[in-house]
């Protein structure tokens, strides 16, 4: 047989609650309880509100660059909902909704974007890693975290998120390949929101789907409507079951859309059509879940109002906690470098100088030592005044 078939593959797409709030009962019934649906809805509304508040904080100079999650809430939320509380969730920076579901305090995320490392050290264990700004690198850490659990005989999988852009990084390939070949149970979730800043996803992939990236590694792959909480939950159930059972990775593409700018430093109007954005506004995961809840007759305007006022209060509190945190210690950057801080670094910390005569002014004549002390004091006062 000179020409034989050595491999075939097929990729499915899952959609349950579509943009018109049509609901596929065969797949969807019994998937999520009504109580949970309400809680999931509340989580999405809260995350969306935080986005708005964060935007205003940035615009009024109270926060640095912030990436809104708007429109993508159902992706990470579906994952967080399905994962066990002690599975690892290793995300990028647009998965707030899932992180909050896991119990990560909002002020942690706010602090991160307020330029404060303490935002990354929020009360543990939520079995999450901090926000990763450098793209594509965290999936390998997810694999390592899970391999450590496997080595210890702990039943724990990981789910890791990355964008359509990040999936172009070499580390993406290495992570998928390591997980597959070393049999590490990781669910890889490619959050395809069609844009990487101004770069359309077709520049990051000429293939018809991102899901098929898993085929390289012989992983099961699926594409889902990422704006459909039912579909993301459905796919994550399949993925986590497979992963847990076989100890091998699974690849999920969640198709979604970033309704806002890339970050507050971006102006998406420069590069994408209002029409495109408008069409996706109609596919908003919150709108359709709201409609579905109303169809189920478990939601009404009154509940909505109560939810919104609770959310507003919670977020105002979180902002207050983030803003009222004490200023970081000037020694923190030094003390956090090593368990055992080298003497040389302690000298830098204590003198706040790198120049040797600043570190050891005893080499100077007495008047100069006095002047030096005065200059240090003035600089210190200037710092404290900030």
């Amino acid at each position, binding site marked *: 047989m000179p020409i034989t078939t050595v491999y075939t593959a097929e990729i499915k797409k899952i959609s349950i609650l579509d943009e018109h709030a049509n609901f596929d009962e065969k797949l969807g019934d019994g998937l999520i309880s009504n109580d949970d649906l309400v809680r999931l809805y509340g989580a999405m509304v809260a995350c969306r509100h935080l986005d708005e508040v964060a935007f205003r904080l940035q615009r009024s100079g109270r926060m*640095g*660059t912030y990436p809104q999650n708007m429109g993508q809430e159902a992706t990470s939320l579906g994952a967080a909902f399905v994962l066990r509380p002690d599975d690892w969730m290793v995300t990028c920076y647009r998965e707030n909704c899932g992180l909050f579901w896991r119990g990560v305090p909002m002020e942690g995320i706010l602090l*991160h*974007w307020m*330029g*404060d*490392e303490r935002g990354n050290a929020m009360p543990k264990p939520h079995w999450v890693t901090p926000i990763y*700004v*450098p*793209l*594509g690198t965290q999936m390998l850490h997810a694999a390592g975290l899970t391999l450590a659990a496997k080595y210890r005989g702990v039943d724990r999988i990981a789910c890791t998120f990355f964008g359509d*852009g*990040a999936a*172009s*990084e*070499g*580390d993406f390939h290495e992570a998928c390949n390591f997980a597959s070949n070393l049999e590490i149970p990781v669910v890889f979730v490619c959050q395809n929101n069609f844009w*990487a*800043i*101004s*770069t359309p996803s077709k*520049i*990051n992939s000429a293939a018809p789907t991102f899901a098929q990236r898993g085929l390289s590694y012989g992983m099961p792959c699926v594409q889902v409507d990422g704006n459909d909480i039912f579909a993301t939950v459905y796919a994550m159930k399949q993925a986590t079951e497979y992963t847990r059972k076989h100890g091998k990775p699974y690849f999920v593409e969640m198709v979604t859309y970033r309704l806002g700018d890339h970050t507050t*430093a*971006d102006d998406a109007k*420069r*590069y994408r059509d209002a029409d495109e954005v408008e069409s996706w506004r109609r596919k908003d995961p919150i709108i359709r879940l709201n409609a579905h809840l109303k169809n189920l007759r478990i939601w009404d305007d009154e509940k909505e109002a109560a939810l919104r006022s609770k959310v507003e209060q919670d977020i105002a509190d979180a902002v207050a906690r983030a803003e009222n945190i004490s*200023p*970081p210690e*000037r020694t*923190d*950057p*030094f003390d956090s*470098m090593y368990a055992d801080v080298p003497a*040389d*670094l302690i000298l*830098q*910390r204590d003198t*706040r*100088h*790198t*120049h*040797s*005569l*600043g570190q050891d*002014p005893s*080499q*100077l*004549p007495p*008047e*100069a030592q006095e*002047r*030096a002390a005065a*200059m*240090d004091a*003035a*600089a210190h006062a*200037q*710092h404290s005044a*900030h």
Partner: protein
Amino acid sequence: MAHLTLVQAINLALIQEMEKNDAIVVLGEDIGVNGGVFRVTEGLQKRFGGSRVFDTPLAESGIIGLSIGMAMGGLHPVPEIQFEGFLGPAYDQICSHAARMRSRTRGAFTVPMTIRVPVGGGIHAPELHSDSPESIYAHTPGLKVVMPSSPYDAKGLLVAALREPDPVIFFEPKRIYRAIREEVPEDDYTLPLGVARTVCEGTDLTIVSWGASVVQCMQAIEKSEQSIELIDLRTIYPFDMDAVATSVKKTGRCVVVHEAPLTCGFGSEIAARIMERCFLHLEAPVQRVAGFDTTMPYYKMELDYLPDANRVARAIQDCLAY
């Protein structure tokens, strides 16, 4: 002659050189329609078309690897790496390939390429958006490393880089992307790589610096009563040791200022060379005012990390008092 920011000066240099030399192609993340996240390449795609100015997939090693191939194939690619923190994934292609191609092939293949990279801190950016890795690349034979401190210099140095037959990393200090405006001639001029600029003359002490730190040094000098000479290195490799040595032989004292961490920062090389070349003229040990040997902190603390005029002033006084 126009009053331009550093961003505009670089944009102008790109346009003018691209008009002259059709081997120049510009590529990177978001550099096309969007004009780059700092708008440095604004308007280029419109002007020169999508095959000369194009967005790439989001992968820095890919961007540099592709550019190396294009350069080997006779073009002069100008890849942008969006922030210096994302040079990391491209390190291998830069240091193991671009830097070595001429030497490992004894000139059969060369890599004329100008890698543009916003560099340094002070703009309240997120993590890994504020580093200063110039000494890493200065330690890599085969590269040239440039860091301008003003719009005028930026244009002249970039034009020189675009005419170089070897790979250049062109670091653009983001902190002064828009902070300074300066007269920048429309005319064709170049500033040769490897030649420093004496920003101001003085007799008591020499400051050697580069990039955005030059501004902090000027602030310190303005407050000082002494006669300080400020040398802006402009090119980190090859570096203008003659200019530095001549100055230090005159003043006998030197402070080097840079944002990168102290240990193995480029200041160490300058200090070592000054000792070698000016030993008998030195009246005090060369002082280094640098970033601390910590990770660049998130932005709440970044001004605490970066050398500022106070720290420079203190080093000046200490060095003079020694």
